[in-house]
């Protein structure tokens, strides 16, 4: 009789001390990460850049003298110098070293960006979960959901940059004011995203199965919904850091940002030198922070795009190679390949068969 049929019983019986097991898991995770990165050069570049950027930021906060010999706003005796080994990005008319100012700006920009996206993720994501999971019309949860979504819609109906600028104007200059101004326009996107993902996950059979098992709603949300919504949200979050950086720079550029040079933020820095009329005679004063913005945004974008592939279990398997699995179910690899084959088939059909059919429903919309 086919007693032990379906599941391949190739796993050897073993005692699993949870600590050792956990260590092995971490090791396996690192190995997987490396394989994935090696197979995707762009993701690798993004990953390395982000690591370098974050390390630099940490050094600049803890021990800035390792990377630069100047303190914030400290002038040298070289005035208006072009880029050289001594001053990589040159100096401005006051003798301030642009490179060290860019470095000092890094933790400021990153901190502000993470603060904004982080709070937006937590607040917006939480509201999105609530609005998505308890949305049955005619119940208290449904009413709450409607209220959340209408408020979100109101915020979304303003162009976010202009709203942020308006709030920045009314709040005045300063780090906290800047964070609040951008944050107020930022959270609604997370509500939308998380609510959409929650609605999609909520109707999957395993949520029904949990309900049938008698699991409480709150536990279903924490145990099943959050874990399965996390993946697209993390990808969006990573990509979003770049977007926030650009927004910050824009606000700084129009002169509503921080007070350069006492608070070195890149957008404000560009704005400061542009207003000082240095952009034509001493272009390096602007190019330095511009390049910093560009590289940082690029790094997070590359990493975000790569994460999208890494976090999807199916493509992760494909990326990392199917041979690495310890106890694979029969023909598992082929199933994956056949799934892929079927997905591609929709777009490669001969002409009479219309080709706009979207790939299998599993591909979640990730903005």
């Amino acid at each position, binding site marked *: *009789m*086919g*007693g*032990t*049929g*379906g*599941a*391949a*019983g190739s*796993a*050897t*019986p*073993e005692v*699993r001390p949870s600590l050792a*097991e956990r260590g092995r898991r971490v090791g396996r995770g690192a190995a997987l990460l490396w394989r994935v990165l090696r197979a995707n050069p762009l993701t690798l570049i993004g990953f390395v850049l982000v690591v370098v950027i974050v390390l630099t930021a940490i050094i600049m906060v803890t021990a800035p003298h390792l990377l630069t010999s100047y303190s914030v706003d400290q002038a040298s005796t070289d005035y208006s110098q072009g880029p050289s080994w001594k001053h990589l990005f040159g100096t401005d008319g006051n003798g301030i070293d642009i490179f060290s100012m860019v470095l000092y700006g890094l933790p400021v920009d990153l901190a502000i960006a993470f603060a904004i996206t982080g709070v937006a993720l937590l607040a917006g994501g939480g509201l999105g979960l609530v609005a998505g999971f308890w949305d049955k019309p005619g119940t208290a949860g449904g009413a709450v959901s409607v209220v959340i979504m209408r408020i979100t819609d109101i915020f979304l109906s303003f162009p976010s940059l202009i709203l942020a600028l308006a709030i920045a104007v009314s709040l005045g200059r300063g780090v906290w004011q800047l964070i609040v101004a951008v944050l107020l326009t930022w959270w609604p996107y997370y509500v939308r995203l998380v609510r959409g993902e929650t609605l999609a996950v909520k109707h*999957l*059979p*395993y949520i*029904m*199965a*949990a*309900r*049938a*098992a*008698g*699991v*409480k709603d709150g*536990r279903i949300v924490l*145990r*099943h919904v959050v*874990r*399965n919504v996390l993946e697209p949200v993390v990808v969006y979050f990573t990509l979003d850091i770049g977007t926030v950086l650009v927004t910050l720079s824009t606000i700084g550029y129009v002169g509503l940002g921080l007070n350069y040079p006492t608070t070195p933020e890149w957008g404000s820095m560009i704005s400061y030198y542009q207003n000082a009329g240095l952009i034509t005679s001493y272009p390096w004063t602007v190019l330095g922070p511009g390049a910093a913005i560009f590289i940082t945004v690029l790094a997070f974008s590359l990493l975000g795009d790569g994460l999208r592939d890494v976090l999807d*279990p199916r493509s992760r398997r494909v990326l990392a190679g199917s041979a690495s*699995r310890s*106890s*694979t*179910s*029969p*023909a*598992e690899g082929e199933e994956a390949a056949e799934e892929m084959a079927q997905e591609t088939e929709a777009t490669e059909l001969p002409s009479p068969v219309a080709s706009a059919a979207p790939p299998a429903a599993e591909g979640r919309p990730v903005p």
Partner: protein
Amino acid sequence: MTPGPLVEVVGIEKQFPLTRTATEFFHGSARRAIHAVDGVSMTIANRETVGLIGESGSGKTTLGWLIARLHDPTAGELRFAGQDILGLKGTALRKWRANVQIVFQDPVGSLDPRLKVWQIVGEPLRAIGELSRSEVRARVRDLLPTVGLPPDCLEQFPHEFSGGGRQRISLARALSVDPRLVVLDEPTSALDVAVQAQILNRLVELQKERDVAYLLITHNVAAVRYVADRVAVMYLGRAVEVGSVRGVLEHPIHPYTKALLAAVPVADAKRRRTRFKIGGDVPSLVNPPPGCRFAPRCPFVVDVCRTEYPPLRELVGAPGQLVACHRAEEVRDIPPESLLVTKEAATPTGPAPPAAPAPA
């Protein structure tokens, strides 16, 4: 006193309201609804397996979910072991759920991809909340061999299993709390035939071991034939024939049951010459036809079928077999094969099935 049935369903209905279109809204017309289940009565005894056969849109899954209290019925009564369970809410309902568990059709979607086997199987146990983590793990470890899984796969993830393995995990989850009834919602339809047989055989063995009743929802007549004691055939939200497996599947009376049996492809080269006579599409559940739901496709239709719904009734000489057909006496002896025309008998143009007009 004889023990009553485990589950007693009386005239249960479930409608899913549709959103009104703008025109309907401004004309003030009533909300239309999908009549998924439209007045079904049935019982399930202790340790019994009832098969529920029907095609998509027949309401068989909705009925199963109503019995598992995953839907709230629009009307009707539902009793479990004599107790009215429609009034259960909140914590009482959650506690009751240990009595009725469900195995879903989709072997991929019904298991959370981010949980390990022991967490999935142990979820109903944890929901009751009487056992610690390690106790749950131990229970799950003991349970896995009974469904034919190795006990050392506790730490594996669902995607490491084939479809059959995943359905075994689902089954283990359902059985973990020793339910009195397991609703099996198309448990094998996503699996290959050889694997289907493994799972069905295991289901039968488990029933003997564990004194559990099954409601087997499926379109697979062979599975019902093997596993079930009694069977109900559903069409468009209504039960058209109910009775013992032997009676209904060997001597089907309702024309739809006959059609369904005749339509099942059989591995027999002679089938090449046969033509299926029943045409038409399954009508919409939004505006179900008045009278017998099968009338638009029925080869034996007469005028009364189109206006009056035939109640389920017992025929003389077929005790325990209930049929909802006006012409049951006349059609009872017509074999299902007569709905297949062999090529020799067919007219040159073929018995072109009249295709139903497209739904608007």
